[in-house]
């Protein structure tokens, strides 16, 4: 009951008549044959500011492997993956969504983790505790976090 009420209140807050945003679950992401994803995973536009923060935070932690000139102030950026400057010139939004969600579709065998999937792991752990994960796994990033990162990457034009 309480949950239903919250749902109603939420959809009212989110604009009343508009249908509540649809989250695409990790198993249902419509990758095309190339590995790109045309449609938003959260139905809510990405927030590039939050995406920028996620580059250096939590399970995203993209700067462990990637450099971005614009983030150089963070110091000690990784050199494993390509420099992401100009990513928005090289890729479409759909490509970037596909890369962040599951980079192994576009780059088979790549070292880059798959951030929006929940299965197929060997000995999945409970965070960084070294213990086995219990129960159902959440993807490394939420649908909205993927969208936020894509929105941030779309700001990276070659200057």
């Amino acid at each position, binding site marked *: 009951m309480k949950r239903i009420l919250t749902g109603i209140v939420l959809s009212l807050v989110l604009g009343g008549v508009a249908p509540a945003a649809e989250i695409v679950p990790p198993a249902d992401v419509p990758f095309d044959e190339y590995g790109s994803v045309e449609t938003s995973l959260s139905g809510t536009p990405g927030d590039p500011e939050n995406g920028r923060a996620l580059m250096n935070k939590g399970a995203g932690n993209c700067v462990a492997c990637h450099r971005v000139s614009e983030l150089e102030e963070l110091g000690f950026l990784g050199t494993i993956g390509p420099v992401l400057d100009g990513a928005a010139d090289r890729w479409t939004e759909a490509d970037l969504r596909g890369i962040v969600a599951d980079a192994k579709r576009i780059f088979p065998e790549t070292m880059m983790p798959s951030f929006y999937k929940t299965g197929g792991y060997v000995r*999945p752990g409970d965070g960084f505790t070294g213990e086995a994960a219990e129960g159902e796994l959440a993807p490394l990033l939420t649908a909205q976090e993927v969208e936020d990162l894509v929105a941030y990457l779309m700001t990276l034009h070659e200057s």
Partner: protein
Amino acid sequence: MKTRMLSLAGLLLAGPALADPDDDTLVINGEIEIVTKAPAPAHLEDVFDTIISGWHYRNDETQAIEADDFENPGMLGVEAARDDWFEVAGTGEESCASCHGEPEEMAGVRPVYPKWNEDAGEVRTLAMQVNDCRTSRMGAEPWKYAGDEMTDMVALISSVSRGMPVDVAIDGPAQSTWEAGRDIYYTRYGRLELACANCHEDNNGSMIRADHLSQGQINGFPTYRLKNAKLNAVQSRFKGCIRDTMAETFEPGSPELVALELYVASRGNGLSVEGPSVRN
């Protein structure tokens, strides 16, 4: 879709590693010459031309600490183990020295471990062998597999072989264990799906955030890490690296990590024994 061709340019931008291993040479106490670069052993020829000690990937200050036993804090563990070596323990009223004499007589042992033990019908690490001496010959309690006493003792036994080339056998009865270790090395564990090979084979020389990735060689173990200010057993390092892939780890002493130790040791065949080394 638009500019897939251009993506190549992005990949090229990553360029060569920014921080290759350096060309310094390591001589400990001005007398023990350490081979820190060597031609890759035959089984690794498709992967590397040269195998390189983790020493080369550390900065000059860290490197210097290892070159002098008075500076190397790992030598305090070696001294502690020297006391244990001569201490009578267990129901047999014996010490390591009762059977083996001076610790220096262990020279030549470290380079060939992990090693097949015919009587036991298993590959044994040095730690397993030490605990076998303690329990079956001395009637003493086993030490914790990667605990301080054990790690100090392995450091003592390593220290007297410094400068000798690592030379573990990978064929004959050890082969199936070696193959099991190799499978583990190439398995992408955890929710980040990373294998040892992703970091230490494909990307050594690169930076993963602030860390300079080495080949992950184990000729320097046990390793005194400035980061946790203690001697670290090799299997504790393995466990830590696996944990960092967001995986359920294996415990030190498990069959998996014993097999992995044999395999990783064999990737360093030809480098000098260097332990106790110093890393950050």
